[in-house]
């Protein structure tokens, strides 16, 4: 298992092949402890949602799992290049076309057939007819689709998505989720963060609730519902109950 403070250390995951294992991740920004010994385990083909309020540490956790940031303590069993990552903010070149962005990253990923990968991703994201448009001229939703497509280019067996559907309309969101569910069905492990409790409940097999850098809950969406109802009481809807649950836990 790799020490996450040196996240680029290569590690072969033998006992949990195809899975993601993070243990005791700690991240500090000055005096503030953003992650307080967070552990996360995702099995092969599992779809795990990380939910929590703003500032809970969701993006920091995914960044460490992706190898973008270094943890101050803890370990991750995957090398950064063995994990697909879709950042929350679109990471694209506005002066390049959709196809050029995809082709650039396909080449940097050293894919055997970059052009075929580009074509596949254009079809997947429904952007074939916009392939030659500059990314700067796309809507926010379409940019996010290209952003996701680039994260999927490497076809790694672990995929991290940081709020993937935040700027998509319902139809685009549905298309992306169909694709993600297709990946998990083929054995890809997917960990994603979201604000949307309904989205987490609808798609995730397991939910991890983060608040102030601590894991408050880990289990199935149904189990989360029970805990929220028990600790958050009846506030009319699930979101209200969830907020009350966080408050009950001291957050």
């Amino acid at each position, binding site marked *: 298992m790799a020490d996450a403070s040196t996240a680029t250390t290569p590690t072969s995951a033998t006992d949990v092949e195809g899975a993601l294992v993070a243990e005791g991740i700690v991240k500090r920004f000055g005096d503030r402890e953003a992650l307080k010994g967070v552990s996360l385990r995702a099995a092969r083909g599992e779809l795990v949602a990380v939910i929590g309020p703003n500032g809970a540490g969701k993006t920091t956790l995914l960044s460490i799992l992706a190898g*973008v940031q270094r943890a101050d303590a803890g370990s991750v069993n995957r090398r950064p*290049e063995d994990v697909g*990552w879709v*950042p929350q*903010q679109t*990471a694209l070149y*506005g002066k390049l076309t959709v196809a050029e962005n995809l082709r650039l990253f396909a080449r*940097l990923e050293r894919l055997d057939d970059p052009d075929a990968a580009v074509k596949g991703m254009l079809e997947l994201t429904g952007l074939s007819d916009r392939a030659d448009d500059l990314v700067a001229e796309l809507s926010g939703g379409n940019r996010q689709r290209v952003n996701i497509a680039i994260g999927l280019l490497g076809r790694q067996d672990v995929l991290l998505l940081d709020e993937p559907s935040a700027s998509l309309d319902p139809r685009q969101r549905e298309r992306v989720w169909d694709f993600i569910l297709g990946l998990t069905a083929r054995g890809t492990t997917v960990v994603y963060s979201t604000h949307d409790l309904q989205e987490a409940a609808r798609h995730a097999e397991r939910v991890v609730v983060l608040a102030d850098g601590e894991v408050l809950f880990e289990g199935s969406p149904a189990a989360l519902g029970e805990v929220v109802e028990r600790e958050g009481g009846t506030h009319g809807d699930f979101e209200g109950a969830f907020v009350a649950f966080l408050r009950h836990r001291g957050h």
Partner: protein
Amino acid sequence: MRWLLLKDLRILRRSPGLVALLVLYPVVLSVLIGFALSAGPDKPRVAFVSLVPPESGELDLGNERVDLSRYEERLFSAIDPVPVECNREKRGDCRRAAVDKVESGAAIAALVLPGDLTDRLQGVQALAAEGPPVAEVFYNADDPLKAAYVEDTIKSELRDANLSLTTKFTEVGLSYLDLIVEGGEVDVPLAGSVDILGLRRAEQIVERAKAGASPRERQRLERVARFSRLARENLDLSGPVLRSVREPIKVRTVALDGGNTSLSSFAVALAVAVSLMFITLLLAAGTLALEREENAFPRLVRGLVSRTALLLEKTSLAAVCSFAICVLMLLGLGLFVDLDWGRSPLWVVALAAGALAFGAMGVAVGALTREVRAASLLCVMLSLPLAFLALVPSGSVSPVLYDTTRAISALFPFKPALDALDAALNDSGDLGPALLHLAALFAAFGLLGRLALRRFA
């Protein structure tokens, strides 16, 4: 790295406005700086009035006639003469008209040569009591820099004219001395040609007279002969003395440092160094900061490209682009300034070394600032002071301040790049130390950039 390089070139190609600005701004700026340093102000516009009557345009110096218009022509080559229309027979009118030209702004100065110029010069020669002629200069002192320049120009030209006339007068004086010593004929107005005996012939006559003279008369004649001999011998020595009066102190100038680069050649090196600095810094810093602004940096460095490779790519991109532009600039400047094309391999080496050092500094700036606007602003704010610091001449400030400017200049690539280009273009010194200096700065700024990338994302 190759794909990133191609990506950046494609982005640049699609930003024609930015590229045009990036290229034109430093080129125009550097050419302006170069011209400002290499060329003085234009010839000053000077209202010129000569009240000397046309028939008095020649000066009679002994057996030689000197045309005074030659001195006017020499003066006109140094100034832009503004014609003054006036009645030359009325001295006051012309003087007033010349002053009006200055006061109205049509001329920055006026030079009035008096009508008795020739007569008075002639009088100087004849040891007349009137004294030398007086030329009047009126100038506008609103602009102190220009006024000083005009004053210097006119004084310098009049000094040259005075020196020329002094030479002529000296030669005339020497010819008179020669006449006294050796004897000969001289033209005297009204009297015509007059034979002058001369000391040598007088001495010979006295020697011959001594033979038939009584002892007492011989003794007296001997005294006359001795006087004549001593006078002749001492007057023979007066020639070198009088000639040395024309230039009592001769000046021998020796350049101790910096070779013999002409101002225009140095201006070329300076213009290219400034362009190289601007283009490379802005490109390197801007393209690196752009990776962060586009949020692409985290995606790139998580296994696709190493941070060091990314820095090298941005440095190379900026260096290659600025190198190409500066080579074109040199080719263009070569049409106007005489460059030694045989040294072009050295230009390439100096340009490449300078571009790489500036590139490393640029990525360090980009990594530290993390935003394109901040990076561009810092590059511009650093560039101009660095250029001026490197140009502070010794002796113009206190030794401590000069040492400080040299120490600060040594920390950045501009001064060594300028030295390298000057050495390569003009053979003004050893290229090696400047290249080593640039290599050290390339390594230092590369390291600084790499450290700054730790907090870049």
